[in-house]
């Protein structure tokens, strides 16, 4: 993702989440978000069956 795309996400999400970030924090947030989305893309690319169950379970 480009910096502009990441900034657009940050600009949209901060107020939606009720968060306030100082301008000086922006570069670090963007860098961390870039890593997160890169790793997220790798996970999303893995083919799983529709029937795949998530790992956390509990018994009622």
């Amino acid at each position: 993702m480009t910096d502009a795309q990441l900034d657009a996400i940050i600009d949209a999400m901060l107020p939606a989440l009720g968060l306030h970030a100082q301008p000086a924090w922006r570069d670090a947030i963007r860098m961390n978000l870039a890593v997160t989305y890169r790793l997220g893309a790798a996970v999303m690319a893995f083919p799983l069956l529709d029937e795949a169950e998530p790992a956390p379970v509990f018994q009622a």
Partner: protein
Amino acid sequence: MTARATIEATLANIADKDRVLNAFTDVTAERALAQADAVDAGQVTGPLAGMPFAVKNLFDVKGLPTRAGSAINRDRPPAKRDAVLIERLEKAGAILVGALNMGEYAYDFTGENRHDGPSRNPHDTARMTGGSSGGSGGAVGGGLVPLALGSDTNGSIRVPSSLCGLFGLKPTFGRLPRTGSFPFVSSLDHLGPLARSVRDLALAYDAMQGHDPEDPFCATRPAEPTTPLLNQGIEGLRIARAGGYFRTMQMPEATAAVGHICAALGVTTDVEIPEAARARAAAYLITTAEGAALHLGRLRERPADFDPDVRDRLIAGTMVPAGMVIQAQKFRRWFQEAMVRLFETVDAIIAPATPCSAPLIGQKTFVLDGVELPVRPNMGIFTQPISFIGLPVVAVPVAGPMPIGVQIIAPAWREDIALRIARHLEATGAAMAQTPKDFP
């Protein structure tokens, strides 16, 4: 030697050496001396009678606010009860002497802390302890206590064990109750011990086993003592070295340490842990999303009171799409099932614990396979895929100018296998918790 004499010597040692190591954030001298007197009076007996220990400051200690490495949590009321694992160790005769420095809210692999200062590596005080159980590594490595407790969400017991040259046990997920500890990522958080000998590690682990209904993730299976099995040796065990991903992204000392341990065990076979890089990526996603959800209120109300390195990661973590986290949890089951199949062919797997020995305090980046990467998230690249599916691991130390650890990975619920192998390596001298020259 009486327990009181042991504790008085321990407290004096802490007062002297911790000015440099900065491992302790609280020293519970009065309570420790009272417990020592109870041991000396025969009111408390057990396999750990008189052994001093300390805990990462995310464990509840009665009378202290559970700070979890943060400034914000210091405003919490003092804990009314000790964490269950402290209760169990004290029931076995151990004596709590204090709480230990850690990375803020456990989101850290360095041992640095903006509020309390960095814990310092006893083998070279200019270097990191590793984190987030940094004070646990520094306190045991520096000889201040023989035993400490830490937590390990993605590697936070195994990384400081590696950098400080210690034996560390991350048990199977759900084995030890987390009741009375401040969480980070509930579906990944583990608690466990760090020690200078495998026997101390096993004794402490055995004393802490058992179901606790207050931790909904704690397994109901009965305790399975490991200490009686420690000296059974390695005959008959099928042990392999992790190949592929685990042979990349590391400095020569990490490769050499794994080679040294494999040679000592007679290991000549590699196995491929499937999709290890993706497992690390999925663990990263779950961690950042769950951790951010935990701290969202504090991020809204007191963002300036966080360590900036932690805050900015957590803010990014609030922006992970739900679909990514759900896919990561589904992939997690796929990976867990693949590892069950792999463990039908081997009994234990050897892998590096960290990509290098201790970096300098303040060092922000390192170069792995020609790529400059940030230190903070990447010290855990080899631990993270393993804790992702909760497998038990003993980190064993390999001596050198700076120590470095190697992971002994066992199938779920088979801590006994990893501890047996660690004990064999210790007995043959292949693994040892070397004494720091400046902290004899």
